């Protein structure tokens, strides 16, 4: 244990520790990167609320797609719903919107949609497997797919108009 060893070891440990901690600053520890970005979106065919029609994801190839996972027991979902509905109506024909409801009762979903409007199919996720396949950690989460069915972006939390449009542009161009 002599002077040089202590100095070198001490300074090395200090620098290493401080640099590592500093890199963590400014990042959101709750945010999880999605490994699906850049990969084909997992395929599914689920029942739509109300019509009970089976809607297959592959049906929407050729157009950018916004897939929004939500539930009636999720408060922030109430906030983002009008944003999604209005944008869906605006972009009808250019971009397809889909809602996937997770762990919920059909009556409640139907009631929610009746009350707050609906502009696109809302599908019921059987046993939550679709959510798991997409790596959904909580609701709401929104996925953006391009016309070839590849995932280009994922957003966690209630979405606002600007972010929504930003990501749609990404889906259209990538």
């Amino acid at each position, binding site marked *: *244990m*002599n*002077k*040089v060893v*202590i*100095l070198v070891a*001490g*300074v090395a440990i*200090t620098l290493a*520790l*401080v*640099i*590592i*901690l*500093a*890199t*963590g*600053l400014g*990042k*959101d*520890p*709750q945010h*999880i*990167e999605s490994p699906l970005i850049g990969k084909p979106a997992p395929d599914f065919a689920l029942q739509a609320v109300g019509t009970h029609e089976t809607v297959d994801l592959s049906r929407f190839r050729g157009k950018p797609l916004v897939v929004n996972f939500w539930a009636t027991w999720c*408060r922030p979902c109430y906030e983002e719903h009008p944003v999604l509905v209005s944008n869906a109506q605006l972009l009808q024909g250019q971009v397809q919107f889909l809602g996937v409801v997770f762990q919920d009762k059909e009556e409640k979903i139907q009631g929610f949609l009746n009350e707050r409007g609906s502009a696109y199919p809302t599908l019921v996720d059987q046993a939550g497997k679709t959510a798991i396949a997409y790596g959904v950690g909580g609701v709401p989460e929104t996925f953006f797919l391009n016309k070839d069915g590849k995932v280009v972006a994922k957003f966690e939390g209630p979405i606002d108009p600007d972010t929504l449009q930003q990501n749609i542009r990404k889906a259209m161009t990538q």
Partner: protein
Amino acid sequence: MIPSLGRLLVLLSLLVSTIGAVLGYAAGWKQSPDGLKWARRFAFAFAALMAAATFVMEYALITHDFSVGYVEHVGSRDVPLWVTIVSLWSSLEGSILFWGFILGIYIAAATWLTRNEHLDYMAYAIGTWLFSGAFFSYLIAAPASPFQTVANPPLDGPGPNPLLQNHVLMAIHPPFLYLGYVGMTIPFGFATAALMRGRLGQAFLRPLRNSLMVPWIFLTIAIMLGGWWAYEVLGWGGYWAWDPVENASLLPWLTATAALHSALVMERRGSLKGWTVTLVQASFLLTILGTFMTRSGVFNSVHSFTQSPIGPTILVFLTVVLIGSVLLLAFRIDSLESDSRFEGPLSREGFFLINNLLFVLFTFTVLIGTVFPLIVEALRGKQMSVGRPYFDSMVVPIGAVLLFILGVGPALPWGRATKEQAKKALLPPLIGAAIVAAIGFTFGVRNAWTLVTLAFGGYAAQVTLGQMWLPVIQRIRRGDNAGAAIIDSQLKRGRRRFGSYLIHAGAVIVIVAIAVSSTMRTQQEVPLRKGESATVNGLTFKFLGTEERTEPHRTSTLALFDISKGGGPPFAHLAPRMNQYAAMRDPLGTPDVHTTIGGDIYLSIMNLQGDSVVVNVILTPMVGWIWWAVLLMGFGGIVALIPFSPPRGEKVPLRQDSGQAPADEGSVRIEGREAVTS
């Protein structure tokens, strides 16, 4: 009015602590007694100002003065008074003010108790303490100010986080934690001062040891309270999740424990000085790291305060103190280590060294595991997790070896032991090992690690009890009256020794109880309708129905259960509940626990709808032992700490080894060497 008063007090404390720090270092450098006197005055002034600021904040909280920023943030008229009082530390800004308050108390106490001693380096110590005080005053004054003025004060506020209102431990755990954490500043000041003076003799040991022991006791109990609180409140039935902030509280505890042991070798043998000083420095540095981890928003943790801009500031302070400590240690190392006489591995000193290394390894492992996700994200941009399975696999072997050392170390004599001595000391406790392992086996323990832990625990228990009562036995053999022997040996002269062995006894129980409670646990989800019963492990749980309870700040729905065994009458009644707080959207569950000596019966609600409940039944053996054994450790620490002064006219002048300095404070005899104020 109050916000301005608070800000003024904080600014004054920043001024006073800065001047005091500079004064302290200057007085130490110049060896000026007047400078020291003034540094002391500034130290007391700092303490007074911090206390005043804290009282002003409490006053604002209790009178619901919503013009104060912090009160607007956490105050509420609907919560009980005790919640209002403890909301001082429920959120970030208030908690730093609380840190400053505790720091002031410690500095004042340390300055007062050393008023006639260590005149040559006290100034440096005070300077160091006030340097830390200045930093925290700065935090309270600027980036994390609780005394902001609110332009249009609301009529009511949201109250503190409901998770913090669920249990009375909210009033006890944080103060204990702060008393433990903040207290590490004091021995750091002593160590820094001694290094600066280039003197690490025996005179320095007593204040170092005492100032290390006091926060150690608080921190030990605080960590246990944290675990107990998580257990009672969170509903998953566990007490330790290796959460980054939990780890942050454990790291300084590990180094402080190692430092206490290392200081013992320093006292008896004069060696391991570099180790001791480094460990003391590390204990303080780790508390600053811990504060960074909790408040910077860098770590994903249950305990994290909301993201705030004080992260970078704390990091800068940490860097400065870290570099300063490294430089100081490097340039003074020559005046420390010179007489490392190690008689070989089969000696008590050898085992102390191994002990040090194990604690450092433990600390390193927990630290690496906690920051590793950050490292990977910095290097590879990918996110990964290091969770419970990792820590459990790493820590269990280390813990087992530590338990082994706890048994073998105290059994060995100081100095080189002959084969005969070693055999005489090390073989008999094997009986204890066999007995405890056998008891475990009969109770159903089959896990290999648990059985090993039980064996080591039995070994250590026998050694500890043997050593604890050795002086009493010797005195009885001489012919002393048993009662007098006990009182004198354990409660008077031998208090430090007795206290230390009490701590060890507690530690053995804790480690064994952790091993058993983790591996012998049963957990099952049970769905029941009103009136139905289910059986788990021979215990019958009957769901009686629900009950509503309304309080001003929350509404609770209780699920009532009767527990019986076999076909007998119910012997316990549990009522886990779901609480709906006015301030929160989703309900929060609270479990209910029935504790017996054998283990706990723990119920928490997973789902409650009308007359149907899904309840989580968790049966954990021996978990209650952990809390009580840690309290035993704390009690042992207090016993060891109380100084002993011999009554007047004492016929046999026994050496004072329990910490009280006689009038000529510098002379403490160590085995043939008489060192006077070195």
